[in-house]
């Protein structure tokens, strides 16, 4: 039997997935799902993520769940068929507000030119604060190194993986940077770096009020999923993931309102101006 190479599981923030607009079909495997090429150049079919459960909808044949990290939402679906039943059992054991680690397959579907992302969990387990901090440390380090490699790649007219490797980047980082430079030459990496840098410290605590304020504002700007405003629960979950207390979130929301950055469109729903 020919052994198959294990599909790499990418540690990514929700925002890296959400900002992705490029799919790459896999021609080597029949009926294989496409890879998602993210703005940081990751070529993804499997992810390993963490976040807080903000919504859960469990039915007999299917469980849907929303998971929020400090940058946005992940959407999870597990079915009670032969392939997904274990994932469904795991999702069913979790409750809103639980902090979890999920490894799963990233699937996509397109509607009117927009790509929607969904994760079919293979493993979903409740984790503690220390494990979350560990994930944040590693994920932010990965994202920052990729961002630096992308900037180095963008300085060259025709960047190659070999050139970047000579500069000290790993094979994976170099290949990601070349893919990112090719597919997302105009992507603004500064926002992603700001988020990743804020989560680099061991306490996963962004230092200073400004960073917290920017995180909350950024979240409100980017997570108005249904056009009715960003939900307070989602903001709170994202902020908690970034180790920001509820009291501080309330204070930041008030300040952002007074500063004219956001407004409360309906009860506990916020829109950026």
């Amino acid at each position, binding site marked *: 039997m*020919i*052994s198959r190479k*294990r599909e*790499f*599981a*990418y*540690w990514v923030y929700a925002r890296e997935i959400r900002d992705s607009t490029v799919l790459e079909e896999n021609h080597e495997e029949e009926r294989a799902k496409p890879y998602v090429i993210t703005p940081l150049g990751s070529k993804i079919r499997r992810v*390993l993520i963490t976040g807080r459960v903000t919504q859960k909808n469990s039915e007999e044949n299917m469980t849907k769940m929303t998971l929020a990290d400090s940058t946005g939402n992940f959407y999870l679906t597990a079915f009670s068929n032969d392939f997904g039943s274990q994932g469904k059992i795991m999702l069913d054991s979790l409750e809103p507000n639980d902090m979890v*680690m999920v*490894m799963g397959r990233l699937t996509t579907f397109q509607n009117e030119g927009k790509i929607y992302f969904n994760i079919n969990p*293979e*493993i*979903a*387990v*409740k*984790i503690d604060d*220390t*494990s979350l*901090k*560990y*994930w944040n*440390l*590693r*994920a932010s*380090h*990965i994202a*920052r*190194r990729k961002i630096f490699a992308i900037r180095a790649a963008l300085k060259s007219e025709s960047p190659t993986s070999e050139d970047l490797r000579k500069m000290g980047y*790993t094979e*994976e980082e170099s290949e990601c940077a070349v893919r990112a430079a090719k597919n997302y030459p105009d992507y603004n990496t500064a926002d992603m770096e700001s988020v990743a840098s804020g989560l*680099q*410290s*061991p306490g996963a605590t962004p230092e200073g009020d400004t960073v917290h304020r920017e995180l909350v504002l950024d979240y409100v700007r980017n997570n108005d999923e249904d056009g009715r405003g960003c939900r307070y629960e989602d903001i709170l979950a994202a902020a908690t993931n970034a180790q920001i207390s509820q009291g501080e979130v309330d204070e930041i929301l008030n300040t952002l309102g007074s500063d004219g950055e956001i407004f409360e469109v309906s009860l506990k729903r916020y829109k950026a101006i």
Partner: protein
Amino acid sequence: MMNGEEFPQISTLEPGKQNVRLKAKIVSLQQRKIKNEKGETVYFYGILGDSSGTISFTAWAFPATIQSGDVVEIKNCSTKEYNNVNRVYIDSRSEVVLRPGEDLEVKRTFRELKIKDLSTTNPYVSLEGRISGVMEKEMERDGEKQKLYYADLEDDTGKIRLTSFGRSLKEGESVRIEGAKVSEYNGRLRLTINDKTKVLSTKLQYTITERIVNLADIANPIGGITVQGFAVNLGPKSGLVMRCSQCNQKLDDLRCPDHPDAPFVYDLFAYFTIDDGTGHLQCTGGRMPLLPLIGLSPDDFVPSNKNISRRGVQSLLEEKIPGRAFVIGGDVIKSQIGLSMRIRDIRPMDEEFLKTFSRMLEADFQ
């Protein structure tokens, strides 16, 4: 510089050359099978040497009659850099011809390496490290009694088993070793020194602390390292194992076929994959590191304890391993499935480790 028959000397070979003609001694010759989608392929690799130095080679075909120690003429080979090292490549266009009766003096050249970079591809090396765990044994060689010393040699990147024929090793001494040989035994690398190897006392320019390694950086079997990551599964054959108390054989039944009267004892085995965001690695562990993880003491883990069952142990492993973040110390070994880690100690991720880990990651951006 060319020698009498206009062959280039090995030390003058530059990378990126085609149609190279060489005369060299086969210093070492090994073969390896690789499996891929196209089936099974065998390739050969080893070291060529002459009076100017040595160079590694890879051959996709090699005459079966030629052995290590033979002097050969190689026509139409090429040179190319791989992992920053120049190598000779012998392919289907090349010709390897035996030069019967000839001998060549070979000048040994040793690469200066850290323990994490050791591999059998470059078997002759120089390195530095600290000696620990010295044991000695007497053996007979060519009718003469000789002392054999075993120890661990460690630097700031890893640990390796060191074997010395005749030359004594001093516990705790920091040494510089020139001309040791790397070989592989039972999936682990080991280093051998003999009377031609130089061993000099030295002062290490670094402190040996916990060697935290990213999974993506593990390319060879390397001992004494610490890895971290989320366990993303648990092998289905993990669980309670029964063994014969006399011969330690694993029992499928409650009786050992060789020692039916001997009582059985409990052992524990688990295997799982960890993922640290840079890569993944299979880890296997036994009773010593795993019992504390599942909250059992050696005194509890005995057949007379009726609270211990296969199902109970399986549940504990399922509860304590998949999805959890761990810090794992151990040795990486090589087997048919590739590289895997033998766990020496395992602990859930903790704040103290995170502080060290954070400093390590942040150092990348300074």
